[in-house]
């Protein structure tokens, strides 16, 4: 059956079961939420992969986008080192076991929207010392990892969040390859690993690390035993590896970053599926210590998810509503706060969010990078499209954004694209290129 026929079938069945898209306003602090509706056949509409064919994503006037590096092996999150080198974590999680006929079928369908490339299980270093937008040097920085995702640097310690453990590597300025084995700081929850990504960030003074650990199910359909130490953010002491739950009920916190204006921890979180095209909005929120954000028992505060039994009214009562809705099913996977006017004064206070794109609604949503303006440490205004054009005119995806990162030295925004296996770089067009003398060319060339 062709993808189009399948989509049409899904659309007919979804509409027959009253799962229509009503065009509600679901961006901002108080999204409109429809009634929960389970359709007979979950709506599945994933943009089919397409080629860029020399084209690039669209950026606002005054900016230029270039492919900093291509032919990566599923790039996810990035870290810009103090010297301007860019680390790119590449990998794919091992995939939770298939427990039901549905798991088998859904796995086949969702794979159609993904790259066929095997995850690299490595970190690649990109060096663009002349800041012309194309990395002139590239090395395999660390190899033999296990689905690395989150990256953080504290002083001379590089932390890598594999899908099952947090590792520490000694890093020296200018280094282009690390061959020493990483030291395990702590194991990370990895049973099943339905949501395998381990987002990572460090606080400003480097005394604590924060790891985002996603749930082991969509809505507790693997049982609550499987949700031990899941759907939460861990706070970790980097010295000892001791950890505690910092905030809970966060279904899938896929990216963490500190707001430099307030010093608060923020996260983008992917909410649950299969209760309608406009439920539940994925969100951007400050992560409050000790707070419970609802999953799986409720969403957006105390809206009960009837699929979860036994219910926990005492937990739902204290469920915190997130700060800012990004839209339903947009799949926010990247978060980077602006570090001052790196990209000009318009983009001085706020955050960039990478939206990987939807599968559980007919009207494709996400598939772009948006700017969320902030004022006084809080979101102020609707999301503004910053990088678009990942979808071509025919509803096919040429790329899907994951991590976003600010390059303060190169005055650029970096975007990891795990469909076209590219790192994109967006920079102001008329800013003079940085002096090229800062770094010598990397000694080892081309990682593959």
């Amino acid at each position, binding site marked *: 059956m062709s993808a189009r026929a399948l989509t049409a079938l899904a659309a007919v069945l979804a509409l027959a079961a009253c799962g229509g898209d009503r065009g509600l306003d679901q961006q901002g602090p108080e999204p409109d939420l429809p009634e929960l509706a389970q359709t007979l056949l*979950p709506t599945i509409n994933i943009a089919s992969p397409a080629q860029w064919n020399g084209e690039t994503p669209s950026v606002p006037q005054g900016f230029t986008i270039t492919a900093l590096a291509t032919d990566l092996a599923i790039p996810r999150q990035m870290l810009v080192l103090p010297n301007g080198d860019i680390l790119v974590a590449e990998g794919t999680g091992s995939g939770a076991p298939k427990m039901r006929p549905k798991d088998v079928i859904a796995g086949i369908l969702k794979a159609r929207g993904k790259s066929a490339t095997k995850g690299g299980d490595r970190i690649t270093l990109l060096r663009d010392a002349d800041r012309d937008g194309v990395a002139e040097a590239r090395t395999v920085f660390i190899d033999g990892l296990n689905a690395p995702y989150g990256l953080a640097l504290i002083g001379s310690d590089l932390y890598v969040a594999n899908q099952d453990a947090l590792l520490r590597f000694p890093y020296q300025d200018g280094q282009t390859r690390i061959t020493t084995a990483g030291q395990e700081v702590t194991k990370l929850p990895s049973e099943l690993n339905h949501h395998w990504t381990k987002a990572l960030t460090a606080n400003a003074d480097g005394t604590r690390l924060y790891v985002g650990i996603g749930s082991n199910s969509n809505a507790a359909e693997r049982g609550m035993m499987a949700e031990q130490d899941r759907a939460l953010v861990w706070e970790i002491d980097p010295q000892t590896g001791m950890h505690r739950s910092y905030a809970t009920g966060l279904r899938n916190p896929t990216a963490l970053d500190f707001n430099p204006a307030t010093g608060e921890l923020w996260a983008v979180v992917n909410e649950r599926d299969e209760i309608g095209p406009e439920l539940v909005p994925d969100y951007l929120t400050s992560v409050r210590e000790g707070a419970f954000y609802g999953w799986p028992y409720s969403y957006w505060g105390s809206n009960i998810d009837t699929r979860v039994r036994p219910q926990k009214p005492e937990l739902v009562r204290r469920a915190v509503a997130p700060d800012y809705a990004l839209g339903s099913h947009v799949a926010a996977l990247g978060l980077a706060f602006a570090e001052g006017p790196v990209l000009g004064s318009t983009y001085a206070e706020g955050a960039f969010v990478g939206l990987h794109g939807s599968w559980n609604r007919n009207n494709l949503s996400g598939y772009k990078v948006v700017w969320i303006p902030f004022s006084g440490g809080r979101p102020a205004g609707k999301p503004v499209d910053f990088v678009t054009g990942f979808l071509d005119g025919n509803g096919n995806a040429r790329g899907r954004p994951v991590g976003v990162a600010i390059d303060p030295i190169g005055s650029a925004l970096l975007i990891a694209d795990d469909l076209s296996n590219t790192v994109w770089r967006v920079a102001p067009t008329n800013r003079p290129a940085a002096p090229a003398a800062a770094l010598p060319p990397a000694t080892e060339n081309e990682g593959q």
Partner: protein
Amino acid sequence: MPVLSVTAERVLHPLHAILLAFPVAFSCGAVLSDIAYLNSAVIQWSNFSAWLIAGTALFGGLVLVWAIAAFVCARRSAGRGRALVYLVLIAVLWVLSVFNSLHHARDAWGSVGTLGLILSIVTALLALAAAWIAYSAPPRAVSREVAP
């Protein structure tokens, strides 16, 4: 002068009988695992139900093909009436089990609930009724001309 031999011809082909046994066992098992899930909220019971109902749909589909063929081939009017009832039961069983499979593909409590249990019970009753009809069909007397 031709010699007529009268023999009792089997009604159910052994393979048809074996295929029919699966929807009977699976659909009844799904009722039990649905009840166990609704009483305990232990997810594994709903997983059992999902596989059992998918199995009912798969084997029900194969039996349906056979039932259609049996109806088309039924010659005598009495056998034809019985074949039609059997065909209708199997057809409804198959449609309901596909529907119930999709229902059981929902997550957690949404996979069973009241509607899921009702669908499972009706499917099981249809399977039992169809099997009763199929397995209790009287042997048909067939006259054949044999060589002297």
